[in-house]
């Protein structure tokens, strides 16, 4: 691709620049993704409306980065994760993986390409592990399905190696999922995601159900694996502190919309969207000596229903900085500074920023 030709033209001293270009290569590009669920009513189950779980979202994921997606319950972050790999069939938009539009592929073509290269880790690993299969068999399944490795011995070797990588003893192959603790099960979930050597891992609340001491172990493991296997992560979570720790860039969702997307440091030091500001200020923090007291913005009211979202900007019903335009005009996600995207009328006029 472009990176090889670039190498020829750049002097060896400029390796840093080259690395940067390679780093910024887009792995996944999401364009206007929509995921609507019909609301049916009456005897003949007529469609009377839609829940707009994901409504017109666009973003890119760079190779090797961790993109954090944060938002409160019902904002559509998990639905988006699933729609990306067609666990739900998206209502509209496209998802380009290495230039190929996943949404247009027939199911048959999906398997060797996408089902192998993109994997998911879920919040509750126990719910995604078959309780009647031993750990060895659980991990062998994907290898068989994709016809990898010639025989059972080779597969066993691979799995033993993998278990060591995720911090489980290789003898645990013969155990069943119920014999593991929560943290160990999440390690199994990770092993299961890694077994096909994926490029992109979508982690949906992967550490949310774990106790803090175990959570830290799993976060460290995910970071180690990323550098070891060159993985790209989409890390979906409601926990803003965890996302700050693990992500490179962060997208903030509210009622099916992406309201802000920027580098982690920009978001956490100076968020632009009023929702992001309120969200960050609401996180309870450990106050130690030297911790600066932050002003807390307490939002009034609850998140509106996504079956009947507010007109204009979806956040205007709770926004402390609302202006007239917010009630009628839907703000678009715009790049207001290099690599900083925000969907808010306050930044319509570029001079303000």
């Amino acid at each position, binding site marked *: 691709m472009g990176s090889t030709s670039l190498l020829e033209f750049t002097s060896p001293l400029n390796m840093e620049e080259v690395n940067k270009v390679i780093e910024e290569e887009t792995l996944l590009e999401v364009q206007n993704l929509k995921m609507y669920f019909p609301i049916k009513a009456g005897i003949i189950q007529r469609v009377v409306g839609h829940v707009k779980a994901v409504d017109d979202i666009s973003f890119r994921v760079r190779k090797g980065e961790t993109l954090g997606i944060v938002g*409160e*319950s019902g904002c559509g972050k998990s639905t988006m994760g699933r729609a990306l790999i067609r666990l739900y069939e998206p209502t509209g938009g496209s998802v380009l993986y290495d230039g190929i539009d996943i949404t247009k592929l027939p199911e048959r073509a999906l398997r060797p390409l996408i089902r192998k290269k993109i994997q998911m880790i879920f919040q509750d690993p126990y719910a995604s592990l078959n309780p009647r299969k031993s750990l060895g068999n659980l991990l062998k399944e994907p290898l068989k399905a994709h016809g990898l490795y010639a025989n059972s011995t080779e597969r066993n070797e691979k799995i033993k190696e993998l278990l060591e990588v995720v911090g489980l003893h290789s003898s645990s192959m013969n155990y069943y999922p119920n014999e593991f*603790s929560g*943290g*160990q099960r999440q390690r199994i979930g990770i092993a299961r995601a890694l077994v096909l050597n994926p490029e992109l891992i979508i982690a949906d609340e992967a550490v949310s159900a774990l*106790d*803090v*001491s*175990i*959570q*830290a*172990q799993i*976060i*460290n493991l995910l*970071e180690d694996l990323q550098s070891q296997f060159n993985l790209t992560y989409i890390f979906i979570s*409601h*926990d*803003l*502190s*965890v996302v*700050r*720790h*693990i992500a490179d860039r962060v997208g903030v969702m509210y009622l099916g919309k992406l309201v802000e997307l920027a580098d982690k440091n920009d978001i*956490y030091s100076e968020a632009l969207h009023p929702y992001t500001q*309120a*969200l*960050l*200020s*609401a*996180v*309870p*923090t*450990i*106050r*130690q*000596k030297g*911790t*600066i007291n932050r002003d*807390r913005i*307490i*939002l009034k009211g*609850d*998140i509106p229903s996504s079956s009947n979202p507010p007109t204009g900007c979806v956040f205007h019903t709770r926004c402390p900085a609302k202006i007239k335009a917010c009630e009628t005009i839907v703000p678009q996600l715009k790049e207001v500074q290099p690599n900083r995207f925000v969907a808010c009328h306050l930044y319509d006029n570029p001079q303000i920023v």
Partner: protein
Amino acid sequence: MLSTILEVNNLKTYFKKNKRIVRAVDGIDFKINAGEIVALVGESGCGKSMTSLSIMGLVPSPEGKVVEGEILLDGVNLAELTEKKMYKIRGKEIAMIFQEPMTSLNPVLTIGDQLLSVIIYHLKLPKREAEQKAIEMLELVGFSDPEKLLKSYPHRLSGGMRQRVMIAMAMSCNPKLLIADEPTTALDVTIQAQVLELMKEISIKFSTSILLITHDLGVVSELADRVIVMYAGQIVEIANIDDLFDYPLHPYTVGLINSVPKIEGEIERLQAIKGNVPAPGTIIEGCRFAKRCNKVFERCTKEMPALRKMDGTRSVRCFLYDDVGGE
């Protein structure tokens, strides 16, 4: 000196599970003063919820039982009271709110029915006055249209609203002690901030003592005056809030604080505590944390350290501090 509202002495709550005895709460002592917010912190299975259920007399029976110890509420030992007498205490003297308010609200009764029944039973008010009281309480927790709310069913409310109804119900009889078991864990952050703010206001307004049970150190830091850290059924450290976060003593407390990612400032790598929380019922010789401790030495694996008083407000269960201060 502030008056003591609740005093727990050598409380032991055991369970029978598959013919084995699980020591869920294994000899804990603490006090809560009037108007104080005390947080009980620990990871799952450390016995923090079982402590609160023991105080309320709600330990699942017959498999679980308070086998030893005293729970003194204003001098009355709750552990010895009959179920009938506990009825008069629960909801009146001690109220409790839970993690998931939907499971503690009856789905087929209106908010009014449920709120009024508490007020009428404990305060013995006539219906009209009770209704007035209910409306007052709902306004206090931030509802703008309480009359209409009294006629609604719980499923119509959002999680944050339900939790506020629970707080209104808990506070309606002006209890001496409010036990809040993970009150904001199931809520979104923006809603959590609302509820925490409300709890702060309420504790000041009613000067109610709160026993806050949580695993979230951020919530503890926002709300509590004093903290009790539990591990495997025992208290490992008691400290004032500032002391605890500025100078944690017990290696487990240090580990807990260091393993939480912070919203401010950057840490390269989280310092995880190795290993797992021991399964309830595991018999451990010596210090229960020794296996996971990064400062372990020989004595830790043989002897159980005692919870030692360091200075005025601070206690710690660790051999590292055997020669330092205290009695």
